[in-house]
């Protein structure tokens, strides 16, 4: 659109700036709070310029955790979150790319039935099946383990469905050409399908990394041992009671640490991510 209306331009910029402020200001306050002492935070109004406690606060949470609430160090919590945020997308992709391959390229009895079985699980996210899943994980002795944290979240239809849709856009002739070339189905999978799925995988990785990183309810239920806390849970566990009883400076530092990795993943993989959602290399 080509328009020249100065007032409209000024107005729309104003709206956009307000929107940015609404999102950015809380983040800014979080960061400022993470550089102050607890006493400074408790003052009303709280100062809005960075304090001098940056190094102290961050080294405190990274090595020792809070003194009042959870004693888990942020470094171990970040590691746990990272494991969760990596195992979930990688596990999901490994399983769903293979099942999508089976559903799209092989004719077997009850093929559509199995597809719909997988599809129906979309209606059953963790929150819905949380009690039976907890029971199963508890009976298997997987509480406070990485397997317990990740396995129930790996099984999902979203990724399978995404890969299925992508595979269906690949012309049949490509599979036939590979057959004439003498490629076995698995060879076709490795040499043709996987390279073509790269961008789809990248997009899926970004989405699922954030999904895994931000998991709250599930880790909250099955981690009771401080060494297994994920960052998001750690923040919750650091909040122990009334407003003044909490070490807000340390909590805010942990919150900043919790926000960084997803932001980094999105920024670094943005190019691939957009590519995977909008175009296919065909």
């Amino acid at each position: 659109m080509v328009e020249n209306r100065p007032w409209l331009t000024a107005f729309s910029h104003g709206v956009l700036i307000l929107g940015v402020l609404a999102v950015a200001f809380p983040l800014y306050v979080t960061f400022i709070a993470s550089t102050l002492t607890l006493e400074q935070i408790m003052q009303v109004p709280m100062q809005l310029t960075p304090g001098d406690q940056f190094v102290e606060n961050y080294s405190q949470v990274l090595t020792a955790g809070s003194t009042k609430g959870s004693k888990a160090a942020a470094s171990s919590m970040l590691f746990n979150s990272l494991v969760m945020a990596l195992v979930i997308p990688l596990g999901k992709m490994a399983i769903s790319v293979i099942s999508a391959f089976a559903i799209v390229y092989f004719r077997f009895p009850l093929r559509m039935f199995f597809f719909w079985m997988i599809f129906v699980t979309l209606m059953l996210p963790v929150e819905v099946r949380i009690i039976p899943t907890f029971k199963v994980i508890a009976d298997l002795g997987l509480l406070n383990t990485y397997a317990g944290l990740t396995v129930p979240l790996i099984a999902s239809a979203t990724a399978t469905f995404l890969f299925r849709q992508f595979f269906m856009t690949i012309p049949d002739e490509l599979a036939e050409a590979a057959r004439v070339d003498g490629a076995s189905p698995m060879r076709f999978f490795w040499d043709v399908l996987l390279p073509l799925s790269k961008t789809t995988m990248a997009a899926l990785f970004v989405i699922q990394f954030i999904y895994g990183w931000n998991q709250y309810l599930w880790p909250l239920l099955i981690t009771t041992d401080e060494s297994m806390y994920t960052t998001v849970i750690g923040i919750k566990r650091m909040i122990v009671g009334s407003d003044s009883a909490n070490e807000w400076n340390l909590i805010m530092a942990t919150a900043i640490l919790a926000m960084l990795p997803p932001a980094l993943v999105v920024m670094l993989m943005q190019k691939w991510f957009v590519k995977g959602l909008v175009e296919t290399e065909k």
Partner: protein
Amino acid sequence: MAAVSLRDVRKSYTPELQVIHGVSMEIKDGEFIVILGPSGCGKSTLLRMVAGLETITAGEIAIGGRVVNQLEPKDRDIAMVFQNYALYPHMSVYDNMAYGLRIRGLAKDEIDTRVQKAAGILELKKFLDRKPRALSGGQRQRVAMGRAIVREPKVFLFDEPLSNLDAKLRVQMRGELQALHRRLGTTSLFVTHDQVEAMTLAQRMIVMNAGRAEQIGAPLEVYARPATTFVAGFIGSPPMNLIPKDGRLLGVRPEHLEPCAASEALLTIDVDLIEPLGADIIVYGRIGDGESARVAARLPADAKAQAGKLAVRYAPQNAHWFDPGTGKRIEQ
């Protein structure tokens, strides 16, 4: 190189839905065969059955004397060129051509020799490092052919390989295909719906309609003596005129109708459409005596074409007769 035999080949998807109704043909070693027919006549299905991409419901297909009904495509020693080329988008031109050879476990320098040779024949040497995406339609077409050539198969199978090209390129590729066949002498099956491709490329052709082979023969023979009304109406542009006469169908090609004096007229056309093409003029109209058959006549460029009655005649040897019930040719 090898001969290919089709023996009463049939294909049905369900017992009621039969798409190929028994096609038989002996293809000689090194022959270039074109399978011609309108869309949905089963020509691609037939080719895919030879390739091994479709199962054979009944009958037998033999390549080089070996029945291949139960063999996988890779074991049939064929190479196929697809309509949309089906190049691997993420591989370079070189890798596209080398892929099948690598799977076969050929030595690296043997692969390189073959790819370089094919690239030389097809003038692709400059493009070996490019991805298919960076090539034009004609170049992609050549890569698809290159992929077939490097295999050195017994039979080439072409599934409408030229139909995605523009008209000019199609004519050029047609010529290259002919030259390639002369050079390699490999038995080839070529599916098309384009009669010009069929006429120019084929040594023999199969005209198919609704899953049946209507006629098998050399292009000029098929043109001169169509076996059925379908073949008469499908080949030639405009196709043969079919006029009901004395309980039979009279077939005359438009170019065999010549204007004449009203007294000598065998037919009178009520002309209502004139198409000057430069080299000649085609006039269309109904037969004068009220019958509804539409007729086309190809007149020389200098003829004075105008709407209204046009008296035409034809030489008796150019008249074909068909049975209106079965559509079969009636030999005189």
